């Protein structure tokens, strides 16, 4: 016993050590402080990044190093260099690199530049609200006309529960950003339990920015606070992802730093998700021109073109994406979906066959292929595939059910086999007893010519479906009963 345990432990340790040794990466570059009192800046590991991004960061690091090496460099100039470096890191969300660079910029020239604002935004993004409040407060003190920083500060105060401070901020921006001010004041009132006031503010925010559908949630909570549950439910129905948008040039400018294909893909995806398919396609065409091998660009462009009804164009890009990433389930799924939609079922079968080669054990892939084969009236192939799947995984209920149903009711009478279908259907029913499972038994019995029993089973299917409370399924099964009452109860074949 002891030997077994030790051996098992040793195996586990070796297994883990092997993984660690195999995957231990080297540490990244660290920019040591240029002057006393500044922080080191840990640069991202460039070898992990796409070439375009790595090149941009390499250039930024080189530019910073060159600037910092200049003799007699002023504090504001060095602050600018740290700040610009921070912005590039921040644009790509390398927060741990950006933060000390912002900190150094602020230490060198606290009142100059946008660094406090951006540092506060970074802290807000990463959820460190106390620190975010400090930096944003300082940013507002340094640049009182920075109204976007005031809104951010208000939002951070709300998150911290500092409601009086939050109210003060939002009241200051009621003319510059009226929707944001109303929304912020609504959130404050909601937290204070002043539900009527909250409703007024939220309604005002929605009046100015109806696309800010997320406000409906807060409005619902305010109505709920008043006990007006019907109105609360109505607003919950209307809630969505849209938020109150505030123009914040400093933050918006970060996006312009992101280069090349990635930027276009990011913006293209956003446009696609917003349903703006023309714009998405235009952006993603540029991304594909910049990076013809980009799978995300090809995939999203293909999907956009499919949405625009351009089947040929969509398939060009989806095929290209699939050729580059045959193991990516999303790419394969998108290509198959487009092929089916644009009535190229045979090619879809071929693609699904390729996917299945990569994942021979995946039940959904198998069933998808079977459905496509059935769609093309290739029933024999479908049955053969299902028999193979069932032989290897007899516990898979869906595989067994699909096979039983095909053997019972295939439009091709040559592949029907009532006895085999009944064997399968009975095995399924032993572990799964839904109305549909009872119907599978009924179908098999009918194909085997045992119509009396089949009628009993279809009635049982109706009863089970009714007990399960599934109205649509009950109606469907009930409509099937007359066929089982007929002399020849087998499923009709064309």
């Amino acid at each position, binding site marked *: 016993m002891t030997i077994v345990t030790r051996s098992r432990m040793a195996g586990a340790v070796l*297994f883990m050590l092997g993984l660690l040794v195999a995957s231990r990466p080297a540490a990244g570059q*660290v920019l040591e402080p240029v002057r006393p009192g500044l922080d080191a800046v840990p640069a991202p590991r460039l070898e992990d990044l796409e070439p375009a991004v790595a090149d941009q960061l390499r250039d930024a690091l080189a530019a910073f190093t060159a600037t910092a090496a200049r003799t007699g460099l002023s504090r504001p100039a060095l602050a600018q260099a740290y700040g610009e470096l921070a912005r590039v890191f921040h644009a790509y969300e390398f927060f741990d690199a950006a933060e000390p660079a912002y900190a150094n910029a602020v230490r060198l020239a606290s009142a100059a530049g946008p660094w406090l604002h951006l540092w506060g935004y970074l802290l807000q993004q990463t959820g460190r609200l106390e620190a975010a409040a400090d930096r944003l407060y300082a940013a507002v003190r340094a640049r009182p006309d920075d109204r976007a920083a005031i809104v951010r500060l208000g939002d951070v105060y709300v998150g911290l529960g500092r409601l009086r401070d939050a109210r003060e901020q939002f009241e200051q921006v009621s003319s510059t950003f009226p929707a944001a001010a109303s929304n912020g004041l609504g959130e404050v009132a909601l937290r204070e339990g002043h539900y009527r006031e909250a409703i007024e503010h939220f309604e005002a925010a929605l009046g100015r920015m109806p696309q800010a559908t*997320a406000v409906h949630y*807060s409005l619902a909570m305010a109505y709920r606070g008043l006990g007006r549950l019907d109105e609360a439910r109505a607003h919950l129905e209307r809630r969505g992802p849209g938020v109150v948008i505030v123009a914040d040039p400093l933050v918006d400018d970060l996006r312009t730093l992101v280069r090349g294909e990635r930027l276009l893909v990011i913006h293209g995806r956003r446009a696609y998700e917003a349903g703006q398919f023309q714009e998405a396609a235009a952006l993603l065409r540029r991304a594909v021109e910049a990076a013809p091998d980009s799978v995300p660009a090809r995939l999203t462009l293909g999907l956009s073109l499919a949405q625009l009804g351009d089947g040929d164009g969509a398939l060009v890009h989806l095929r290209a994406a699939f050729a580059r990433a045959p193991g*990516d389930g*999303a790419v394969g799924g998108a290509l198959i979906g487009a092929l089916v939609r644009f009535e190229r079922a045979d090619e879809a079968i071929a693609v699904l066959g390729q996917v299945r080669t990569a994942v021979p054990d995946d039940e959904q892939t198998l069933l998808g292929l079977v459905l496509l084969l059935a769609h093309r009236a290739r029933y024999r192939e479908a049955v053969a595939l299902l028999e193979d799947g069932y032989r290897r995984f007899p516990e898979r209920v869906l595989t067994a059910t699909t096979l039983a149903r095909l053997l019972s009711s295939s439009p091709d009478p040559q592949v029907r086999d009532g006895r085999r279908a009944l064997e399968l259907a009975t095995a399924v029913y032993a572990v799964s007893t839904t109305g549909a499972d009872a119907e599978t038994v009924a179908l098999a019995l009918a194909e085997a010519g045992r119509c009396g029993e089949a009628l009993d089973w279809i009635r049982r299917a109706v009863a089970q479906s009714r007990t399960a409370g*599934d109205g649509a399924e009950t109606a469907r099964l009930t409509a099937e009963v007359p066929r089982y009452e007929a002399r020849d109860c087998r499923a009709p074949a064309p």
Partner: protein
Amino acid sequence: MAIAVLLAAGLRGGAQGAGPLFTDVTDAVGIDFTHVNGATGRLLLPEVIGAGGALFDYDNDGDVDVFAVQGGALTASGAGAPAAPPSRLFRNDLNLGRGLRFTDVTAQSGLGVAGYGMGAAAGDVDNDGWVDLYVTYLGSNRLFRNRGDGTFADVTASSRTGDPRWSVSATFVDYDRDGWLDLYVVNYVRFVPELARACYTAGSARDYCNPAVYEPVADSLFHNEHDGTFADVSARAGLARAPGRGLGVIGADVDGDGWTDLFVANDGDPNRLWLNERGTGRFRDEALLAGVALNRMGQAQGSMGVDAGDADGDGDEDLFVTNLDNEGNTFYASLGRGLFEERTAEVGLATRGYTGFGTRFLDYDNDGWLDLLVVNGAVRHLSRQAQAGDPYPLKQRNQIFHGERGRRFTEITGPAAAAFAPLRVSRGLGIGDLDNDGDADAVVFGNNGPLRVLRNDATAGRHWLGLRVLDGRARRDALHARVELVRRGGAAWRRVQADGSYATAGDPRVVFGLGTDAEPQTVRVHRPGAAPETFSGLRPDRYWELVPGEAPRPAR
């Protein structure tokens, strides 16, 4: 009264000043378990999701044993590779008089089954007085029936509980009050390793995927048919057409109607609050109106773990949900009647920067007020650790919060709670009184790292009352019953629970911290659907067994 307050204050200061609140005793107690996530550089989502385990008294000897769920290698079918180490069962040998010691009894238990495991739920499904075990997997789950002789039988096939989807947490709950434990299984996403997506950070580095790129799946509800089988009633209950990327679950009667409801923590999708429609066998999701589906700003969060407890001492169950590091965790204060309001900032829990998983309310210092533990570990690479060359840059420290008499929580992770400070990737958290000394110890289940046993050393000099609340007919733990400690300054409430946290079953016994009060106590037990029953004359500093209609008796 003033003297009592001073004494209590001094006691707390003394307890904290004298030494650590918790001590890592893993090596000393003989538990040697390291979770293997099977990472090979492909950055597959399951690698960062497991694992948990169970704290349960499998041999009915009066002490809590530990079951640790193992991962393994991710293979083509999603099952564990044959060479991967199995899950392990550690028997607590406290009753042998050698202090807190564990013995690995995996081999003889029948629980040493390979497979890419995720979590566990514990409950006596056949009412034979022996706690059974349900283990969730990336692949078909397994139900192990406790034979009562130190071994378990795999009854998955005969019980019809082998949900083939990727499940993480589960809970046993008698939702229809028929006296038999049913089973709720939380499912996550449809995942096939060979079809896994490649995902990138905004800076184009490879990283683990957001689960949003995978299709969500619905949860399952299995009704106990009283004959060793379960029926999948998910469709009838209204769950089958409600997919979500579920990770955590807890049962609690949140609307006070005497029927146990279910809260499901979803990762990136709105959480669900399945209100039990009073014996109809149906549930309806009221999470949105209840105010627990989203955070205060109306956004769904990456929710993982959950616990329920009367944190503010007003007699109803509040909820605490753990989320991603940039979101922060969420505290939902119950307003009564099944409605909640997020008050995370107001109660001092708006600490961010940690991705929370397992979590439990507990009264670690036995002062009578609930405190809070949260174990953490990122799911996306932490750039500072990646930059430093860490091969698994997801490590974060854990957190402990002291409950300030139901008003606020104060984080005290620091020198006094150094056991929570090491940077690790933690997932499951099991709470239980491992050494039967009347305080809550903790077992932290790591991801691609070691399991740690943290002994509670914070309660010296404080009195306590331990209860094992049993169901009358079956003599099994009366899961989801509520227990009210009747006292002059206002009642304290606890729940008999083995669920919550993350993928981990906990010790179902209830412990009330009494502070300096050494007088015999009175409790009232509220079992779902039964009239409250009062038990008096319970002397502190020991465990009592409470059976309906019988006099309380000292527990073993």
